[in-house]
């Protein structure tokens, strides 16, 4: 009942605040379109596993940008992302299976192999490319689209949720709430649910737009994608509310963007961390975006189902729960 009162109030407030509504719903679309327009290609380093490929050929293929990995389970490694391609020699036919869920690998590897093979003496060998995942991933944007969906959902919900919660304190209404018989957990739950409504709508708008207008691949269930985005948004919301406790005003809240939001981009999967030192990967583990983006990529490009992404979802749930509890603790402390 009291929670419902807060939900109703937040919805009323938002519907009146057209600018913020636009920020929540149109800004992500605008940035997605811009990224879509400008996104370029870049080359990287790749690991390749081989089956029955003659050693001489392997030596030719191996280069600065391609590393040949010795493995007994090439296809499992491909699925785990340990290697980006598997080369199989069948008679005179060299078959390559490529992990096309990662940016640029397909084209760059293909070009590289073609060049290597044409300058070698084995011109009789034909190269036959087969895609490991079903999705038609053609441009760089197709690869990063799923990550960007998660990133923007996180960013805008963090900002809007955090600032709204902050304003409740700065305009004195939080203190006024404390003079009513409402419990601290009811305040936080009301906020979560009220903003949850907008987070769901935002997720649906952004995903529908990405898939149907920008033609980002969608191999898995769109409902699952919306659910993943929502879980990520909840994490952003609880984190935004928590950090708003440590900000005195809107300006200080904005200062969390370079500290909290921007670094997440580096661990979101937009940039390859394959050659980064282990401690960098360690930092990535505490970034909620990493799990959300990886789950989105899994479902949208690889076509995986709930089973494959359940661990990512659980971790996101863990983040939200942790932030929820910390929110509760700080709000109770603030109330005294």
């Amino acid at each position, binding site marked *: 009942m009291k929670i419902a009162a807060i939900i*109703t*109030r937040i919805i009323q407030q938002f519907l*009146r605040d057209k600018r913020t509504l636009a920020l929540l719903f149109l800004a992500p679309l605008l940035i997605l379109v811009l990224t879509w327009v400008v996104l370029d290609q870049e080359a990287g380093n790749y690991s390749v596993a081989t089956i029955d490929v003659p050693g001489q050929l392997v030596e030719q293929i191996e280069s600065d940008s391609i590393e040949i990995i010795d493995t007994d389970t090439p296809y499992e490694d491909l699925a785990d992302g340990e290697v980006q391609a598997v080369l199989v020699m069948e008679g005179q036919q060299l078959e390559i299976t490529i992990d096309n869920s990662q940016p640029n690998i397909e084209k760059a590897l293909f070009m590289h192999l073609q060049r290597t093979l044409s300058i070698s003496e084995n011109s009789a060998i034909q190269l036959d490319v087969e895609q490991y995942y079903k999705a038609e991933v053609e441009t760089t944007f197709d690869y990063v689209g799923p990550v960007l969906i998660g990133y923007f959902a996180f960013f805008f919900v963090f900002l809007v949720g955090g600032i709204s919660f902050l304003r409740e304190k700065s305009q*004195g*209404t939080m203190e006024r709430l404390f*003079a009513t*018989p409402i419990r601290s957990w009811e305040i936080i739950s009301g906020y979560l649910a009220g903003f949850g409504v907008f987070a769901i709508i935002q997720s649906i708008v952004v995903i529908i737009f990405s898939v149907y207008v920008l033609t980002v691949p969608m191999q898995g269930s769109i409902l699952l994608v919306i659910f993943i985005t929502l879980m990520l948004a909840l994490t952003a919301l609880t984190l935004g509310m928590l950090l708003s406790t440590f900000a005195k005003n809107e300006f200080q809240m904005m200062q969390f963007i370079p500290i909290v939001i921007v670094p997440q981009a580096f661990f979101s999967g937009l940039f390859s961390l394959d050659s980064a030192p282990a401690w960098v990967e360690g930092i990535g583990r505490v970034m909620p975006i990493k799990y959300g983006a990886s789950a989105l990529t899994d479902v949208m490009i690889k076509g995986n189902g709930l089973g494959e992404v359940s661990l990512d979802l659980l971790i996101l749930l863990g983040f939200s729960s942790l932030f929820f509890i910390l929110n509760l603790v700080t709000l109770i402390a603030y109330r*005294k």
Partner: protein
Amino acid sequence: MCSIIRLEQLNQAYGKEMVLKNVQLQINKGEIYGLLGPSGSGKTTLVKTLIGALTPRNGLVQVDGVQMPNLKKLNDIGYMAQADALYDELTANENLTFFAKLYQMQGSYRNKRITEVLEQVDLLQDKDKRVENFSGGMKRRLSLGIALLHEPKILILDEPTVGIDPVLRNRIWDSFYKLKKSGVTVVITTHVMDEAEKCDRLGLLRNGSILASGTPNSLKEQAGVETIEEAFLQLGSDQS
């Protein structure tokens, strides 16, 4: 007379800075009690401690026999903060509805009370206007309306008439007298001397200590002066 609010040896502090020092205070049921003091004297801190928004550093804070802070007791207390804590994007009606729901007021009773309160603070005409378009005085009145909404036994008002014109101030005081008649205890803070004269009893607060407490007349007699202002200065200089 039985006291409905009891403060004993109350100390309150923000960090290391002592804001209230050994405050002793009894407020009787059905009286209008004024806390008079300059800004920075600790009025707001005292009031916030009364409603349980601040937990006392030490000492006793009892409202209606219950140790504060107590969430349930807040159902009996109407509070108006010094700052107008209103939701600007919402209309007056929506603000009232929101707070009514927090006090779990239902359906027809809620609607009846909202209309009554809007009438009482003279905002019935403006009930569907958004608060962002309100004048300062209108916001003040709406805040007061919210405090009255759930028919509390105790009203605690932090500078309720600041920024309100004299005509409306009189009307608001009339409503205080009416509430008093119906058995409501009203605690207000003020730094306006003529307003202090209208209270049944007064507490003079300075530097976090109650200098004196009593009816306006007894305070004037005690200090041997003609006005509350002089009494305040006189009693203050005695202390220091």
